[in-house]
């Protein structure tokens, strides 16, 4: 006995598809005992209507024509279960994304919806009840990225007693937040919030910290990922190094200082920054004299702990994880390519906000004194330029960076606190201060700190007599603006972290058009990535500020804990199954299986046949297509079901 439910989805479907007509047509199809159209099938009354129909008409299988199965298949499976049916005796027909939303003509859309329903009705007649299995889940989580998102997620997961491995690409955890001076809207010192958490990571019994490490290869699936982690050689034994920095002091080879955003030089062997966790040196071979044909062995000779080992090689560590949190953060947009009128980076006193943050910071290259790079003078007139590489389609970047308005206001406040007789000018387009206490913060920058807000974009920056001329517009005054500034700070946009795309491919998750990792659904599954068991935390999913990042990291941790706390996972029954009486033992299926899910099985009579390892099978169906005698088939997608469907489509 078959039931068909046509969802109106408010007007999402009913505006284009005559759901009543579809229900009437369905009522006349073979085997259909009940057909009705419901306003919101996923709602409580909608699900109750399904339950009521199942009881009254003794239905044993259900077709639901509504949205995409990605949206609500799980919802309706649960509804079937509550109604006392096997949850797999249900077929979803997508008449929203693939019908009502993309068609304009009601007649045609309704006809298509009827065809789709007829096809599903034919298919579901061959459905059989399926039972999902259970598989043990590895009680260990991998967190990729050691910024504030990764740190928070690791601490929250381990608080539930689940061990965590935290992998960080660079020599120290801390990420972008460790580079900030103060944070909006409270102006608390970034280090004071972050460094205790970094120390907690290092001291935590349940957290294994791997720095200078990257994910090499990912196999397996939710509950049992096998992941290779490459620990890059740093030529320093982490166990022995005490972080005394004698090597850094004596090293003769200069190297860029990544932590200080290129404002000053570091050494080829160095500690990332004085508060680094772990506090150990690492050697960058590309800048080291010894690795570039020289004979220098100074660091090895001088190291009191004997920690320097030039022969150290990359090490690949393999581990099993039940779940993965990606927390790779963001990168800084390189503005020099798209803004030739700002000097292409040739003027030393046109700097980015990330660099300015280091000038403001007490741990920065100037010890917290604002000194402009060109001549070390203290700037009096400081111009801030918002939206550089944001909201700019000519640079291929239409998106808002979502934090620029706030950190620019913050930097203007800090400028005034550092240099009381300075004047800040902020070029903005729209002041976006949507968070709690954000608007008040921006107002304070204006009223108490005297920052002059100029609504308009900057067109050109050029040097004149030791100053920088900033040419812009005040659209509110309706006139051109020219400022002679001592220092110009560009609020460059946020990009996905370098290498995020590659990691996403390894994890088999999607990135959106801006390069950030994509969540499954912005509201229903905001921290879940496309692959089951992979979660997103922080700015890897999109530009966001620290409060939002920390909140999302907590959410991702909660999802990991929810997944791994029961110790076992339900597996999908949509896996391949072998009919041994038909199997010829040719093992073509084993050759084509991408997941290694086919094994040999010896029957009682000595015949060798194929057998599916259900915990490894992902239900892709390739073996079905390859099997010459048709002995292997995919549960829920048997030849019989697919042919029935096809016949209806072609009729």
């Amino acid at each position, binding site marked *: 006995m078959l039931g068909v439910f046509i969802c109106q989805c408010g007007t999402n479907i009913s505006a284009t598809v005559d759901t009543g007509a579809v229900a009437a047509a369905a009522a006349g199809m073979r085997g259909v005992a009940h057909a009705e159209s419901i306003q919101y099938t996923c709602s409580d009354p909608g699900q109750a209507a399904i339950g009521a129909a199942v009881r009254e008409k003794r239905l044993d299988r259900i077709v639901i024509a509504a949205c995409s199965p990605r949206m609500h298949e799980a919802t309706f499976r649960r509804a079937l279960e509550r109604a006392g049916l096997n949850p797999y005796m249900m077929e979803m027909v997508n008449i929203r994304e693939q019908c009502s939303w993309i068609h304009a003509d009601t007649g045609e859309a309704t006809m298509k919806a009827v065809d789709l329903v007829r096809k599903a009705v034919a298919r579901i007649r061959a459905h059989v009840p399926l039972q999902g299995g259970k598989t043990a889940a590895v009680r260990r989580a991998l967190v990729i990225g050691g910024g504030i998102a990764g740190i928070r997620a690791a601490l929250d997961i381990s608080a539930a007693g689940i061990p965590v491995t935290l992998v960080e690409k660079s020599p120290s955890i801390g990420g972008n937040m460790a580079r900030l001076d103060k944070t909006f809207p409270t102006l608390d010192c970034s280090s004071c919030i972050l460094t205790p958490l970094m120390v907690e990571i290092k001291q935590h019994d349940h957290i294994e910290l791997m720095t200078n490490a990257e994910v090499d290869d990912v196999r397996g699936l939710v509950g049992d990922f096998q992941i290779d982690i490459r620990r890059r050689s740093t030529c320093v034994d982490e166990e022995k190094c005490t972080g005394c920095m004698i090597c850094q002091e004596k090293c003769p080879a200069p190297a860029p200082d990544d932590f200080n955003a290129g404002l000053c030089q570091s050494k080829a062997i160095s500690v990332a920054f004085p508060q680094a966790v772990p506090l150990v040196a690492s050697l960058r071979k590309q800048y080291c004299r010894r690795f570039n044909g020289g004979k220098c062995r100074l660091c090895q000779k001088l190291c009191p702990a004997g920690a320097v080992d030039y022969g150290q090689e990359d090490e690949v560590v393999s581990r099993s994880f039940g779940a993965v949190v990606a927390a790779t953060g963001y990168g800084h947009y390189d503005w020099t390519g798209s803004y030739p009128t700002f000097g292409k980076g040739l003027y030393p006193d046109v700097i980015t906000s990330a660099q300015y943050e280091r000038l403001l910071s007490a741990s920065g290259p100037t010890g917290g004194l604002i000194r402009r790079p060109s001549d070390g003078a203290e700037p009096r007139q400081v111009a801030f330029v918002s939206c550089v590489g944001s909201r700019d*389609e*000519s640079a291929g970047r239409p998106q808002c960076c979502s934090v620029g308005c706030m950190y620019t206001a913050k930097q203007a406040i800090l400028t005034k606190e550092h240099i009381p007789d300075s004047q800040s000018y902020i070029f903005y387009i729209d002041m976006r201060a949507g968070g709690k206490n954000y608007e008040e913060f921006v107002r304070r920058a204006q009223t108490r700190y005297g920052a002059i807000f100029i609504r*308009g974009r900057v067109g050109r920056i050029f040097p004149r007599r030791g100053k920088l001329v900033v040419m812009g517009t005040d*659209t509110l005054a*309706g006139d*051109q603006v020219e400022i002679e500034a001592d220092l110009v700070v560009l609020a460059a946009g946020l990009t996905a972290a370098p290498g995020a795309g590659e990691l996403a491919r390894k994890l088999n998750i999607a990135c959106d058009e801006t390069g950030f990792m994509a969540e499954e659904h912005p509201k229903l599954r905001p921290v879940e990535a496309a692959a089951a068991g992979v979660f997103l935390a922080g700015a890897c999913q999109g530009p966001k500020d620290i409060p939002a990042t920390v909140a999302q990291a907590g959410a991702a941790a909660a999802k990991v804990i929810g997944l791994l706390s029961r110790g076992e996972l339900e597996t999908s029954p949509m896996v391949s199954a072998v009919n041994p009486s038909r199997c010829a033992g040719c093992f073509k299926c084993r050759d084509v299986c991408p997941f290694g899910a086919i094994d040999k099985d010896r029957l009682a009579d000595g015949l060798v046949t194929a057998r599916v390892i259900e915990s490894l099978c992902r239900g892709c169906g390739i073996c079905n297509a390859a099997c010459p005698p048709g002995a292997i088939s995919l549960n829920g997608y048997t030849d019989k079901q697919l042919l029935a469907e096809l016949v209806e489509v072609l009729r």
Partner: protein
Amino acid sequence: MIRFPESINAGAALLAEIEKRSGQRLSACYQCGRCTSTCVAAFAFDYPPHRLMRLLQVGMVREVLASRAAQLCLDCMTCSMRCPMKLDVAGVIETAKAVADEAGLKDSERDLRLFRRGFLNNVRRHGRLHEAGLFFWFNLRTNNLFNDAGLLPPMLRKKNFHFVPPRIRHRRQVRRLFQQINGRQG
């Protein structure tokens, strides 16, 4: 005061014409003002470029057509180069200029319009500019015979002022050029 929806309705037809001819969607402009920031002629405009765009958006097309700015724009295209929304701002202003001419809006910058017309006719006729012809034609039309007369002695001395129109070889092709452009605009 701008009254909605009256303003939008009043400007709709002309705005559609400008959007169609220039191939630009005015609604894409979000008023960042970058066009104005480096406009070299804005000092002489009554409305800076970003305000011309805004006036068009709210339907005040007649103000734009009658503006000094539309007539004084140099077509240097800097605004179009810099627009973050890739709008051809200069193209929009240029189109407004052409629409204003066709609509016969004669109240603003009459001399400027006259000069432009005389200049183009002159080039079309001779294949290149005949300064003396334009000089006398324009001064007669504006009843100001001695306008710019101070330039005559140095020009004569440098032999830059010819009473006989120049003859260039491919005059016909220049004329065809004009025809093509007119055909495209029509």
